[in-house]
């Protein structure tokens, strides 16, 4: 349990630890500042070292923080295990001792019993024997009792241990859970802190590397420069020396020649003197040699210096190389990582592209399918309409009403979709469709109406205005003058020698380029201006159309007030931008379907049979139904009448037969009566008539 407490105590450790860490950091940074001042030789160096130390400290503190916690936990676990082991050993020892004691006691008792048996063997008297046996029995029982007690105790102990073990297991489980929680928490905290630290460290390292590189480069440059300087100096010195020596040589030679000449003059007379002279010369040459030797020595010294410098350079270059290898190693590592990641990235990008392509493909396909379905539906509906019309005509004909085909032109004209398809140029159609919608919009917008009206009026007016190019030119000039601040100075200088017209045109071009307009927007812009002008006009003189012509003539001279030009231009630009953006949108998105036209079309199709017609149809149906009922009744009655009619004819025929028979009978009877008046003949006639009837 003590250990568990310890674990609990450890739990709130991380924040404390981090605090410590921060303290340490503060301390280290402070120290980092102190140390270099002690060493302080060069400012750059100290700064560098400071940075380096700071980074190192941070890295180390990071590593320490990483490991401390884990080692703490491990040592705690070790201690616990130690404790457990020692406890187990103690228990074993105690148990062993107890068993040993027991065994000893048992041994003693067994000895006693054995002794008892020897006594038993000696005893002869029954009662004595009995009592001894009893005592023996008691002793045995005592031994057994002892053993049983021991066993019970041991079992008890075992049970206790089992319970303890179970408890221990449970506690361990809880601890593990706690530990897991803490680990999770710390993992999160640490990973966050480390990522921050990492970015910081990376930045610092980068800086450090840069600084190091710059420093090394500077150092190298400096050394090189120094070296070259010294080299140059020594060279210069040598040259001077050489020149000096040459000069002396020259002098000596001159001297010699003069002396030789003198000697030649005194050739014979002063041969001895000449010899002496020669010796003198020799001495001087020796001096010269000595001098030259000296020069040689100096050169050697310079060379040695050079060597030294070279060694220094080599050292620095080695250092640079070391740094480079370090850098290359790092780079390799990161390159490898990057390669792997870029591969993954590439694969996913390919996947994405494929998906996009598929999506585009399917949308196009769906759109086409939709179109086709739409067209088919249209056709079907027109067919249905035609069918309905045909039925209507039939009904009318039946009712005897005059029927006329409603707006045949409309029926023949195809639906908006199909017409669109028929159109070779979809753009023109787009324009067409847009135009009516625009019109309708205009009709609906009553508030905006007037201005637009004016617009349209104006457009006609502009057409007139367009004809007068003079006005246009003047407007353009005005525009150029007013917006001159947008034109660059250079351009203006270039334009000075040109003609006025050309000037304005070029200026306009540049102006348009600045404003982001195109050539074709020019007329619109001019319209805008003229519109504004007209508004001015309206403000000044309302009505009086007759005057207007003259006014325009005036305005060409005064034109528009220059103050109005800029606001107008701004307004125009705003509009233009809006328009262009909307245009772009429409071009980007799917060709927007013009629902209003289609709706109208469908409505018309739906209403091809008007309400009145429908009522008429209903009435006609009702009438026809009644008529049909009557006809049905009649048709039921027809067979009956047929039957009756047949019976009638049969009966009539019978009657006639009977009548004819009767006639003949009458005739024969008259004859027989004439021959013999018997009553026998009557029944035979009746029978014959009956047979005929049955037939």
């Amino acid at each position, binding site marked *: 349990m003590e250990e568990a407490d310890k674990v609990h105590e450890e739990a709130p450790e991380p924040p404390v630890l981090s605090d410590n860490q921060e303290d340490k950091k503060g301390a280290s940074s402070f120290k980092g500042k102190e140390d270099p001042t002690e060493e302080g030789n060069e400012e750059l160096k100290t700064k560098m070292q400071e940075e*380096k*130390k700071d980074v*190192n*400290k941070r*890295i*180390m503190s990071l590593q320490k923080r990483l490991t401390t916690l884990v*080692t*703490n936990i491990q*040592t*705690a676990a*070790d*201690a616990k*295990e*130690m404790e457990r082991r020692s406890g187990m050993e103690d228990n074993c020892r105690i148990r062993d001792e107890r068993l040993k004691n027991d065994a000893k006691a048992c041994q003693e008792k067994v000895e006693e019993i054995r002794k008892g048996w020897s006594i038993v063997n000696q005893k002869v008297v029954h009662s004595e024997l009995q009592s001894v046996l009893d005592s023996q029995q008691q002793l045995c029982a005592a031994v057994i009792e002892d053993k049983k007690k021991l066993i019970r105790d041991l079992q008890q102990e075992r049970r206790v241990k089992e319970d303890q073990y179970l408890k221990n297991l449970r506690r361990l489980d809880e601890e593990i859970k706690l530990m897991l929680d803490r680990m999770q928490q710390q993992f999160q905290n640490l990973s966050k802190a480390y990522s921050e630290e990492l970015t910081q460290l990376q930045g610092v390292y980068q800086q450090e590397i840069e600084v190091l590189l710059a420093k090394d480069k500077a150092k190298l440059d400096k050394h090189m420069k120094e070296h070259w300087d010294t080299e140059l100096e020594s060279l210069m010195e040598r040259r001077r020396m050489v020149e000096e020596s040459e000069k002396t040589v020259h002098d000596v030679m001159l001297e010699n020649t003069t002396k030789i000449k003198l000697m030649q003059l005194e050739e014979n007379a002063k041969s001895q003197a000449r010899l002496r002279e020669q010796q003198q010369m020799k001495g001087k040459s020796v001096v010269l040699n000595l001098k030259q030797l000296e020069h040689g020595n100096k050169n050697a010294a310079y060379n040695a210096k050079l060597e030294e410098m070279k060694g220094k350079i080599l050292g620095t270059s080695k250092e640079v190389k*070391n740094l480079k290898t*370090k850098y290359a*190693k790092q780079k390799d590592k990161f390159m490898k990582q990057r390669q*792997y990641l870029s591969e993954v990235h590439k*694969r996913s990008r*390919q*996947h994405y592209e494929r998906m996009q392509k*598929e999506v585009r*493909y*399917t949308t*196009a*396909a*769906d759109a*086409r*399918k939709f179109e*086709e*379905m739409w*067209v*088919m539906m249209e*056709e*079907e509906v027109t*067919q249905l309409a035609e069918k309905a019309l045909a039925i209507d005509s039939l009904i009318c004909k039946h009712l005897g009403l005059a029927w006329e085909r409603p707006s045949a032109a409309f029926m023949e004209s195809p639906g908006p979709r199909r017409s669109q398809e028929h159109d070779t140029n979809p753009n023109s159609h787009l324009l067409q469709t847009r135009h009516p919608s625009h019109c309708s919009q205009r009709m609906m917008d009553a508030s905006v109406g007037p201005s637009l009206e004016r617009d349209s009026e104006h457009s006609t007016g502009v057409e007139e205005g367009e004809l007068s190019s003079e006005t246009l030119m003047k407007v353009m000039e005005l525009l150029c003058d007013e917006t001159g601040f947008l034109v660059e100075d250079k351009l203006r200088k270039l334009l000075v020698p040109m003609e006025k017209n050309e000037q304005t045109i070029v200026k306009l071009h540049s102006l348009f380029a600045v404003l982001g307009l195109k050539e074709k927007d020019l007329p619109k812009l001019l319209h805008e201006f003229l519109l504004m002008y007209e508004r001015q006009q309206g403000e000044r003189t309302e009505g009086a159309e007759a005057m207007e012509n003259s006014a325009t003539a005036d305005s060409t001279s005064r034109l528009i007030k220059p103050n109005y030009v800029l606001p107008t231009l701004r307004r125009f630009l705003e509009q233009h931008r809006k328009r262009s953006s909307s245009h772009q949108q429409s071009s980007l998105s799917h060709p927007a379907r013009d629902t209003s036209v289609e709706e109208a079309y469908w409505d018309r199709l739906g209403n091809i049979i008007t309400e009145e017609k429908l009522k008429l149809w209903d009435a006609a149906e009702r009438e026809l139904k009644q008529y049909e009922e009557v006809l049905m009744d009649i048709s039921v009655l027809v067979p009956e009448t047929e039957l009756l009619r047949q019976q009638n004819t049969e009966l009539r025929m019978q009657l006639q037969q009977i009548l004819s028979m009767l006639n003949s009978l009458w005739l024969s009877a008259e004859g027989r009566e004439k021959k013999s008046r018997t009553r026998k003949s009557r029944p035979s006639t009746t029978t014959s008539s009956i047979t005929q009837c049955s037939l």
Partner: protein
Amino acid sequence: MNLPRSCRHSKVTPRGHKMRRIIAEDLDWSLATVSSLSNLCLQCIVNNFEEKPIYEELTSSEKDFIQNRVSLSLPLHFAANVFPDGVYWKRRCEQKWKVCDVSNYGESWKRMFFERQLENIIELFVPGITEPKTVLDMVTLCKDHIKKLNIAQLLPPVKEPQTEDEEQATELTLENEDDKSGMDHFDFRILLDKLTNLEELHLVYKVKSCGMNFEWSMFEMTNRDCESLAKALKSCKTLKLFRLHLSHLEDKKCRLLVKYLLDHPSLRTLDFSHNVIGDSGARAIGKLLTKSKLEILNLYDNNIGGPGAKAIAHALSKNTTLVSLNLCLNRLNDEGGQAICKALLNNKTLLHLQLGANGVTWLTALSLSSVLAQNNTLKSINLSCNTLGEVGGNALEEAMSHNTSVTECNIHLTDIEERKVSVINQMVWNNQFRKQETSPREKNTENAN
């Protein structure tokens, strides 16, 4: 070409409504949505991959397509030879396991798949029931890709339910049959000599989540297991790391294993942590130390006492390769601790020494501090959970003030005063700092290693 278009003729034909019924059968049908021919071809290859594998002659993007689509249920012996490391193996891994950290497997998905697959097979191998052929088949496929095996359990053979007669009989012959009781685990001899790239082997003789069937015998190896494992290890010439932990390894088996490992050509790391190795096992390991080129030896949580530690110390005083020695949680006591410390007087290679939780006292601390004053190679020391006391603390503090090499020192729970602990820690910190300053390059190379 298109059905809806053809339907327009229904105006002409009187049977137009009949043609419309074709559309009604499949509303989604449209030729326009059929994908491109190349994709169809690739899909066809994918569908018939098993009968006719076409892979090598494709371009890289097409290979990607195939790897992304091919069925994951292709037989392994087939797939192993066709696909190199890549998306296909990634898919297979992710289908099989939830957590896949490829950085543990040298960024190779294929290696990860085969290693974990083989581990799985071995972990579920039941001797006597599973055919050794399943393992061998797998091995022939993956022997080139496996560098590391981490086996977390080994199942014992299934016990026949014994009748009473048999039980009595076995009781009688228990002594004889103990060794042949048929409780042997998986035999590594059939495996290790075939894996030509194996470098690391982690083994545990235990059964995961055995529940109420718990038996002690599940958590130890038999003698025959030990012998076969030792022979298998000897046959695996590339092995660099061998770890056998939590397996109730006793002296006898330890000696057997060490006997076969004595002249192993490549073994550098040996880890017998959490076993029950005693003094005689430690003696054998000491012998191994003198003969092999071990660099890291881990005997954490064993039963080694003073004599065993002396044997190891003796080997250590002559050894020139060992870098790290971990003897935490043993029973060295002062006898062993002092022996080890004395050995360090002659050793110039050991960098990390761990003697935590060993019951050593200030005596060992004294001899260690005499080592620290001389030896400048030791880098980290762990003496935690020992009762060093005041005297030991003073000695260590004194020694640390002369030492410049120790950069890690763990003296938690050692009864040393808090103040001294912080002083020692400060000195260690200074050492570390100085080290960083003087040789950052060395540090880098160390990290790289």
